[in-house]
């Protein structure tokens, strides 16, 4: 079994959270940037519209003033010749009493002339146009034509942004209603008073506005860039910090686990060593003493020697009992299978529990410490069965599967609530199971309880067999 806690750790929350935080931050800032730019653009447009409206209003005011006087008389020159479209107007050309020549400039003509000067001086291109033309020069372009046709009461204005000579302009057109003053020259159009006579359009260069808003735009860009960098940096730092922290935690957990394993194994080795010592020293000494006693020519001392022999036998029994408790001799000499058979005999003899051992006869390569641990655990579990399960028999199943040793103790006794017993605080009966689980987990194995009240129980121990140094390989 691979330590799954490692795998989980690296797949885990902090990488996911970091990616999430970075995405949220990036998306949030991108949204803010987009909104700011949109607002700026709207502002630009509003500014341009105001300017366009200003220009148009001025044109209308000019025109209205001129119209209110039925036009104005000016001195003609080459830029301002007499208007050829006014030939039918009786007083087009006048000569003052002092012989000065004057010509009538009708409002539309005046406006066209002023617009020409404005375009020349300020880049603001005005245009007076109509669907019912008097002067073909006032022919509407495509856009003006579409706008003029679309005018309805209440929607007598249209704007759009276009490129003129490669430069962005805001175009605006406003409807011009037919007024009394217009009729002097334009009665022929058939347009009634108050109806749309034509339109004044204007194109405002956007570059000066863009120049102002460009600085604002740069600020917005800089601000968002800086905020993104700062946030990303912060998130990165936090992620690094938490990664380091969790790496430390993983390391600490590993160290802890290694320590637990080492402790468990050390304890088992200690027991084994103690058992070995008892056998090698005390046991052999007692045997030697008995052999020596047997060689004595005892004669009259016979009864005393017999007593001594009896005492030595008692000592020998004690030694063997302690030794069996620590680590049964047979476990180390013959291996787990025979040791479990021996244990079955013991359980029958001591507790009246009949135990069947079912071994798959696969070699079970365990080192002495692990073998002892498995053996003592099985003994503990069998004693539990004998004491609590209210049955007369139990089964021990040993098998090797996927480089794991699986040993299970099953009985068909009264069973218990496995989840309950492990889910609560360790109480007297459960403590043994807790500690078994801990110990087996610490060597990379495990313990599983399959039991329910009235359903018997199967407690399964697993021990990894791979990478185990082998001392005794007999099974």
């Amino acid at each position, binding site marked *: 079994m691979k330590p799954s806690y490692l795998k989980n750790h690296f797949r885990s929350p902090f990488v996911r959270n970091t990616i999430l935080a970075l995405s949220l931050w990036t998306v949030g800032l991108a949204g803010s940037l987009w909104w700011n730019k949109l607002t700026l653009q709207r502002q630009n447009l509003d500014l341009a519209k105001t300017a366009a409206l200003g220009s148009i209003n001025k044109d209308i005011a000019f025109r209205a003033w001129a119209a209110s006087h039925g036009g104005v008389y000016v001195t003609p020159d080459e830029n301002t010749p007499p208007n050829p479209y006014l030939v039918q107007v009786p007083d087009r050309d006048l000569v003052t009493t002092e012989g000065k020549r004057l010509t009538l400039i009708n409002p539309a003509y005046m406006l066209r002339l002023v617009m020409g000067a404005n375009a020349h001086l300020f880049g603001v291109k005005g245009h007076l146009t109509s669907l019912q033309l008097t002067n073909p020069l006032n022919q509407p372009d495509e856009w003006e034509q579409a706008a003029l046709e679309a005018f309805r009461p209440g929607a007598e204005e249209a704007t759009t942004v276009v490129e003129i000579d490669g430069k962005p302009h805001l175009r605006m057109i406003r409807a011009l209603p037919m007024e009394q003053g217009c009729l002097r020259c334009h009665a022929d159009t058939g347009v009634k008073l108050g109806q749309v006579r034509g339109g004044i359009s204007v194109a405002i260069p956007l570059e000066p506005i863009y120049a102002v808003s460009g600085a604002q735009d740069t600020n917005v860009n800089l601000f968002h860039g800086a905020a993104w960098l700062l946030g990303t940096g912060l998130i990165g730092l936090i992620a690094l910090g938490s990664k380091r922290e969790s790496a430390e935690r993983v390391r600490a957990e590993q160290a802890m686990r290694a320590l637990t394993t080492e402790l468990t194994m050390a304890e088992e080795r200690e027991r084994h060593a103690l058992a070995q010592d008892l056998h090698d020293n005390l046991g052999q000494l007692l045997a*030697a003493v*008995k*052999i020596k006693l047997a060689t004595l020519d005892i004669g009259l001392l016979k009864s005393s020697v017999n007593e001594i022999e009896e005492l*030595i036998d008692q000592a020998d029994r004690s030694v063997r009992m302690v030794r069996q408790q620590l680590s049964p001799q047979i476990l180390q*000499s013959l291996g787990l299978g025979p040791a479990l058979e021996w244990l079955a005999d013991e359980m029958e003899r001591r507790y009246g529990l009949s135990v069947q051992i*079912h071994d798959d006869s696969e070699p079970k390569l365990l080192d002495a410490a692990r073998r002892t641990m498995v053996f003592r655990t099985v003994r503990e579990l069998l004693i539990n069965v004998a004491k609590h399960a209210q049955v007369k028999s139990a089964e021990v199943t040993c098998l090797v*599967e996927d480089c794991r040793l699986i040993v299970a103790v099953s009985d068909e006794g009264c069973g218990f609530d496995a989840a309950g017993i492990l889910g609560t605080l360790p109480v007297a009966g459960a403590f043994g199971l807790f500690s078994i689980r801990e110990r087996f987990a610490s060597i990379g194995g495990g313990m*599983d309880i399959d039991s329910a009240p009235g359903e018997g129980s199967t407690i399964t121990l697993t021990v990894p067999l791979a990478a185990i140094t082998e001392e005794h390989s007999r099974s």
Partner: protein
Amino acid sequence: MIRLMLVEDHTIVREALRDMLEKEPDVRIVAEAGDGESALRLAREIAPEVVVMDISMSGLDGIQTTRRLLAANPAIKVLALSTYRDRHVIQQILDAGAAGYVVKSAAGAELRRGIRAVVEGRSYLCPEAAAAVADGLRNRTQVPEQALSRRERQVLALIVEGKTSSDIADSLRIAQSTVEVHRRNMMRKLQVHGIANLIKYAIRERLTPL
């Protein structure tokens, strides 16, 4: 004269044995070994009549040494001498070819008796060893094979449904190893081999609908 070799890795015990056996008029100790390897070498060179063999020795133990020694020279009589009183150990060394078994704490008179018995071609178990073997024969209550438990039938039903071990483990909320245990126990109880036969059994016995 009985030509005898002592194989015993505890020096104190070996010396005690030597002292005792040297007092026997018809026994001559021709060799002593403290481990299995040298026992095999000395036996080849000296060919003793009887070998008194300790069981628990580091390196080659008494059981393995006995097996090899008798493979090389079947005429030698091996008398096992050990602190073990367990029938499985006794069984193992007798299987390896030993002619007799004496526990160490009874090494005085019993050992002398054992030596003479094996020389005469008889098998010999000291009373303690005989008792252990007899206990083993007597104590084993044969438990009749039980029927499948409820849990095992649940596992079987899931196997029949084609579930994998890990599916079964998940749905019964137990470990996969436990599923494997139930599976093996069922096959043993029903005396069938392999999943296919287990499924056949389940269908034949209509065990599937629980």
